[in-house]
């Protein structure tokens, strides 16, 4: 520990020697405060004393994301061997190896490009590096399909950090979730690499081109299959069967051994993360519960409408698929872009879940609609806050008048 401390102190001293290197202070400071508690103290009277700060909060979210990351690595490999029909011969080590080779470079690229932008802005504007990117850098690879090229990850990350966050003045000021901005940007800029049937399983497209695929191997996600079943009733029976007892039954969907974006497939791992976030008080239980209720209500309404294989899928099963759980736990609860008032959080969460399932099921173009729904909820959040606050003001004014 002492050894590390010395390194940072020396680095600070070296930078401070010359005027020209002084502006690189944020670089060292960022790593320093990540490892050690910052040594600045409150100068005026403080009202709340707490050991936690923004960096520690972000770290907790990253720890909560680790189950999703590890499972995502395993599942990426698992899906790879599944479409190649080699599940019997491949060991779990093979699967982790394949998955790690796909996922870890994406994590590294995302962190490198994002932090590069953060450092540039910090040095240019002369402030310390904002901590906000620590979580976004992990979320961005986890909400990408396995086969997305690395340069796209880098471009999307840079776009999201600059346009989504830095132009607003950095962490805490942005209006849209940074990771979702990155994903939405790629989704609309490079739709062929972000949706469809080819991108979700690593190695699928190559094997298909080479003709090495066994019969019946599919790279589509569960939601992609459902959209197909809705559009083409002749496929409906077969697809419906795979949801009753097969590749996509409730257990598989819950555990997450299904194709999808890297981190989003497993509802179980998301719930473990949610447990940690709720226990430590980092995520708001109001948003998580109301988001779930919103999605459940919409899915139940469409259950009642019925009429095709997609709408007939039980509501609870519907919520286990795609990015619903992942978005609910890690994206919607982003404290910056969510509503700030307690009543507002209920409305915000409900709106997000409700619109999410609506877009997913009614709009055939976007089966992965949760991302857009959370962005829409983000856009509505300031207005919700405004309404809540002004209604509070009105209520209290009334009380004053009565008294």
């Amino acid at each position, binding site marked *: 520990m002492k050894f590390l401390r010395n390194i940072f102190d020396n680095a600070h001293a070296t930078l401070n020697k010359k005027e020209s290197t002084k502006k690189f202070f944020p670089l060292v400071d960022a790593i320093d405060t990540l490892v050690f508690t910052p040594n600045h103290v409150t100068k005026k009277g403080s009202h709340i004393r707490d050991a936690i700060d923004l960096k520690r909060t972000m770290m907790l979210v990253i720890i909560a994301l680790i189950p999703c990351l590890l499972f995502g690595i395993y599942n990426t490999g698992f899906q790879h061997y599944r479409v190649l029909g080699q599940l019997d011969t491949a060991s779990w080590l093979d699967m982790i190896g394949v998955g790690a080779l796909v996922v870890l470079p994406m994590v590294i690229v995302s962190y490198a490009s994002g932090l590069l932008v953060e450092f540039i802005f910090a040095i240019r504007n002369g402030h310390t590096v904002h901590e906000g990117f620590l979580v976004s850098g992990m979320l961005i690879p986890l909400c990408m399909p396995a086969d997305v090229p690395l340069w796209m990850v880098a471009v999307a990350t840079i776009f999201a950090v600059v346009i989504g966050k830095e132009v607003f003045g950095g962490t805490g000021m942005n209006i849209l979730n940074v990771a979702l901005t990155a994903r939405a940007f790629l989704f609309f800029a490079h739709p062929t690499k972000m949706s469809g049937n080819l991108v979700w399983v690593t190695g699928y497209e190559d094997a298909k081109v080479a003709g090495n695929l066994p019969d019946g191997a599919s790279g589509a996600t569960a939601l992609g299959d459902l959209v197909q079943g809705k559009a083409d009733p002749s496929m409906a029976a077969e697809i419906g069967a795979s949801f009753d007892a097969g590749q996509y039954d409730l257990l598989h969907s819950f555990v997450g051994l299904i194709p999808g974006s890297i981190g989003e497939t497993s509802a179980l791992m998301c719930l473990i993360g949610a447990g940690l976030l709720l226990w430590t008080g980092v995520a708001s239980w109001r948003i998580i519960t109301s988001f779930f209720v919103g999605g459940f209500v919409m899915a139940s309404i469409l259950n009642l409408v019925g009429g095709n294989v997609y709408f007939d899928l039980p509501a609870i099963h519907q919520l286990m698929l795609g990015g619903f759980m992942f978005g609910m736990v890690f994206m919607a609860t982003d404290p910056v872009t969510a509503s700030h008032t307690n009543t507002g959080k209920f409305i915000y969460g409900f709106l997000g879940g409700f619109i999410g399932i609506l877009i997913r099921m009614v709009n055939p173009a976007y089966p992965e609609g949760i991302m857009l729904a959370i962005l829409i909820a983000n*856009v509505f959040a300031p207005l919700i806050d405004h309404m809540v606050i002004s209604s509070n003001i009105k209520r209290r004014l009334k009380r004053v008048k009565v008294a």
Partner: protein
Amino acid sequence: MDLVKIFIKSAFVDNMIFAFFFGMCSYLAVSKTVKTAVGLGMAVIFVLVVTIPLNWLIENFVLQEGALSWVDGSENGEGFSGLDLSYLSFIMFIAVIASIVQLVEMIVEKFSPALYGALGIFLPLIAVNCAILGGALFMQEKQFPNIAGATVYGLGSGVGWFMAVVLIAAIRERIRYAKIPGPLRGVGMAFLITGLMGLAFLGFMGFEI
């Protein structure tokens, strides 16, 4: 049911701001506070709801080819039924819009002088707001079979515009204390926010209703 579809489609899917970027000038100018945004949004809803059905009547009974046949009861291109006045549509629509806007201005001045002061020049400028003329021209293009459809279309477009301007006003109120880089402050930031909101609202594109 058709009317509900028209409403949802015009308010969310074909939103005047996020899908067509119509009516941007007043959208950017009055969206600094929620209160003025609500006021102007209401005015736009009112003007659209009144002018689009009026223009629908003019379009269907005066301007279209053969629309004037009711004057002398002629058919097949003889007499009045042979007239095609659609080249007059721009000027007619603008005239209707301008007179309705005058009406709105008088109403607002009478009943809410404070709002009248806050909106300033942007209230009479609704007359040249492209969302209003755009609404009328889309109405012409969409060929609504009856006046109810046109009215609901006007209401939907107005509500969509209202929603957009109130949303961005709330966002701009929230980021008032954000440390935005100097050159971007004000309108630059409003453009960026509109773009990001448009990105989110792309989720409604292609709804199958």
